[in-house]
């Protein structure tokens, strides 16, 4: 045998090898530390502060669970829990079948105009949640055109909250279920067909089990959205108390921040529960699908397709009626007495009343959130997924990034008051500024954006970074030259998502604005309180217009990009 061969030598126990880090690795690790610090300061610390405050009385004395005891002894507050859960349960029970049928029509039938139907079904996302509340008041309120349909019941109260919430959450449920149905494997249907399985049996043995996790996930999202929603009950809830409203009343009405903290914790419980269930289900769902699943192509069936199309048209008509009523209200003089066309709600109601500035504040806030948020979230996800070292830190960031989805906006906002309004906090200066609004919005919508970024990054070859290291090219150069261009569609998607949500959000910012940073969505609340429903509708319409513009721009840019880069984008990557 060759002499060069080293014989296996007896084990020499030597010191563990500690690799020397390159300064570029240090940069990456430093940046990662920055992301982690951001999430700790702007997510973990406020929540921790909230928890502490719930255990203290107004004077800052530690009282343990006494405030919780008092809370549960107050019948009105206890009733809020029942109300909240009942409303959220009802909304979930109605929305999921509605959305499932719609998604089923889009994926399993040969319904015409699928693209258009889908776009219409997603329009509620563009609107602030106050819009359906305003719209339903117009339809079913005291002066409502369809008031007779409610019999003697009033729309102000649970009915109004439930129908408005269904409108607002419908697209969220639809998207989740649609994804689940699209992911299921067409080969299963082919196999079933070759065995002559009847349609109904296919539905119960293939479709439903395949969509099971998607359905549960959608139900959890709908449930926690409704539990956390504050704008809808504020506008259309009448005297019907729910938890989110209680927080608002405690904090703004009675200035009892500690009680507010207690209610926040109570509100956090069901949302966290839904969040954990959803998390577990998503893990299972990912394991369920093979990467080589084949998309299902439905075959035309006349009556089935026709009835599915009719259903979709009906739903779309309802959705458009809600949106349309708000827009219509904003363009007429006075519902229902003077229906002549007028810009007065815009000119007098918004501009002359001096509240139009809040729309521009919202635009500024949304643009900042979209730009800075995308940079932070995509950059953070990149550092997390594609650089090396600091294992513990990575695990921590992964956990922190998942938390915001389980935290209602109001809870986060209240935590911000406690943390940033504290006189000893060096970041105290942020309080009431534009910065804090941008930051709270980024944090509030961190999880979804983060997951989008991670998914896009995971689709890239794992060895790009190894190859550039072997070629002695710094990682940041490869990031800008390869990673960002290849992930551009996902990056734009995150930007659009953050923009639209920043335009429409209320709950995260309701405690944090100042007169100088009043936002459009909050102005709707104020106008509605003052009975200026026309002006409120006008502001809601402006928000919808801005969100729509950004979505259209996104669609155009994405299409152009794909066309320009088709040279290298393989069909699979589309």
């Amino acid at each position, binding site marked *: *045998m*060759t*002499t*060069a*061969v*080293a*014989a*296996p*030598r007896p*084990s*020499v*126990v*030597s*010191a*563990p*090898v*500690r*690799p*020397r*880090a*390159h300064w*570029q*690795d240090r940069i990456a690790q430093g940046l990662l530390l920055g992301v982690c610090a951001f999430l700790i300061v702007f997510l973990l610390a406020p929540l921790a502060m909230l928890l502490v405050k719930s255990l203290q009385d107004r004077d800052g004395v530690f009282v343990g669970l006494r405030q919780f005891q008092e809370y549960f002894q107050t019948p009105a507050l206890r009733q809020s829990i029942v109300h909240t859960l009942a409303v959220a349960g009802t909304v979930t029970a109605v929305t999921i079948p509605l959305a499932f049928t719609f998604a089923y029509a889009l994926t399993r039938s040969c319904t015409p105009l699928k693209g258009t139907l889908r776009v219409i079904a997603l329009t509620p996302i563009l609107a602030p949640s106050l819009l359906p509340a305003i719209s339903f008041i117009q339809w079913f309120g005291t002066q409502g055109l369809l008031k007779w349909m409610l019999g003697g019941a009033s729309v102000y109260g649970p009915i109004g909250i439930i129908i408005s919430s269904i409108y607002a959450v419908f697209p969220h449920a639809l998207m989740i279920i649609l994804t689940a149905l699209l992911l299921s494997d067409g080969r299963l249907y082919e196999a079933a067909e070759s065995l002559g399985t009847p349609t109904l049996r296919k539905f119960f043995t293939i479709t439903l089990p395949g969509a099971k996790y998607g359905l549960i996930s959608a139900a959890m999202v709908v449930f926690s959205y409704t539990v956390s929603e504050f704008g809808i009950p504020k506008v259309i809830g009448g005297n019907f108390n729910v938890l989110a409203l209680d927080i608002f009343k405690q904090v703004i009405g009675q200035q009892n921040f500690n009680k507010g903290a207690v209610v926040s914790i109570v509100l956090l419980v069901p949302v966290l529960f839904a969040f954990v269930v959803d998390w577990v289900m998503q893990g299972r769902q990912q394991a369920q699908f093979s990467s080589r699943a084949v998309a299902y192509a439905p075959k035309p069936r006349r009556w089935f397709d026709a009835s599915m199309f009719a259903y979709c048209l009906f739903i779309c008509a309802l959705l458009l009626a809600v949106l349309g009523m708000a827009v219509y209200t904003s363009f007429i003089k006075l519902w229902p007495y003077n229906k002549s066309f007028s810009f007065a709600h815009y000119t007098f109601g918004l501009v002359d009343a001096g509240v139009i500035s809040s729309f521009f504040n919202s635009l500024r806030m949304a643009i900042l959130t979209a730009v800075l948020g995308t940079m932070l979230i995509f950059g953070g996800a990149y550092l997390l997924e594609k650089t090396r070292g600091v294992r513990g830190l990575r695990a921590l960031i992964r956990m922190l990034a998942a938390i915001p989805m389980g935290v209602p906006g109001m809870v986060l906002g209240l935590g911000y008051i406690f943390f940033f309004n504290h006189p000893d906090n060096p970041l105290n200066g942020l309080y009431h500024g534009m910065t804090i609004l941008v930051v709270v919005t980024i944090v509030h919508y961190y999880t979804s954006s983060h997951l989008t970024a991670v998914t896009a990054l995971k689709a890239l*070859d*794992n*060895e*790009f970074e*190894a*190859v*550039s*290291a*072997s*070629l*002695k*090219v*710094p990682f940041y*150069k490869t990031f800008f*030259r*390869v990673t960002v*261009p*290849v992930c551009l569609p996902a990056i734009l998607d995150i930007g659009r998502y953050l923009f639209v949500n920043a335009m429409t959000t209320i709950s995260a910012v309701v405690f944090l604005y100042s007169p100088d940073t009043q936002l459009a969505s909050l102005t709707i609340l104020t106008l509605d309180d003052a009975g200026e429903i026309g002006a409120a509708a006008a502001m809601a319409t402006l928000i919808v217009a801005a969100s729509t513009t950004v979505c259209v721009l996104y669609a155009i840019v994405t299409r152009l990009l794909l066309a320009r*880069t088709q*040279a*290298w*984008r*393989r069909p699979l*990557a589309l």
Partner: protein
Amino acid sequence: MPESAASNEPYLKLEGIRKTFGSFSALKDVALAVANGELITFLGPSGCGKTTLLRIIAGLETQDSGTIIQGKRNISRLPAMKRDYGIVFQSYALFPNLTIFDNVSYGLVNRRKGRAEIRRRVAELLTLVGLADAGGKYPGQLSGGQQQRIALARALATAPGLLLLDEPLSALDALERLRLRGEIRALQQRLGVTTIMVTHDQEEALSMADRVVVMNHGVIEQIGTPQQIYREPASAFVADFVGKVNVISAVAEGGGRFRVGGLVLTGAAGAAAVTPGTRVRLYLRPEDVVINGAVAANANAAAATVTKVEFLGAFCHVTVQVAGAEDQPLLINISRHSIDRMNLVEGSPLQVGLPADCMRLLR
């Protein structure tokens, strides 16, 4: 094997490399020396630690302990950026949004070379891998084999001292694989670049390598030239993993004799030392078994009956039952020619001989 005759110093030397993932030990005390200009293949079953070892050499993974010397430099603790190697992955990892030209020049641009010089070097490399005209295309527009050639050109662009290839051919179809095998070997010899290639295809390992490193469960089972690995396997694992082999259970009788059922065999390298009564296993390659006419001179002759003839093209696998050891079927390689000539079919009688010098006694 091209010896670096001037000094016997190896170009790359690994000592005591260990790596664990949690409680799983992926590499256990691995030692290896690679001479300058040599092509070494890591061969072993899936999960034996080949990729891990390669990534440790590249600095993409850190060993728990052990040292790595490359060209007299101790690189054990150096980050990947500071090491001197080019690497090609199974997935090629070509940058999809950059042209072939930009891909190949990726590592050159960073070295402050002039534009003209970069252009010249890229042209040279593309010609070297036989894709001179591909510069303006994108990776997605090339076939798998072409992409692999580009990945190779990119890895060689900066003229690294060491080339690392992780299963570079496994994603290709059989024909393309065969062609690239020859091309990579020719290129490597022409450039004289020290190369380590990971593979789990034994034919690939044997046909390309100066030396083969056979690995199993995180340890090196044997290091040797392809001939040594095949002819003188150092362990039962190597004999089994590389090529086909007959395993004959026997009992030692002393004096270099073994009892197999009713037969007594003599020989096998290293046979004399075995204590009588010990159960042993004898290894004999199917092509080493002699038949009929050639048997006469052989001590270990026996009568046999053909039980199965498996047609494989130029060769056939013939299974026979040996009289006296019926429970241990013996596999023999016989050319199609001989089969036709002797008219061997199921049930045909056959004289077989088990040459003592070809039989090996292994742990």
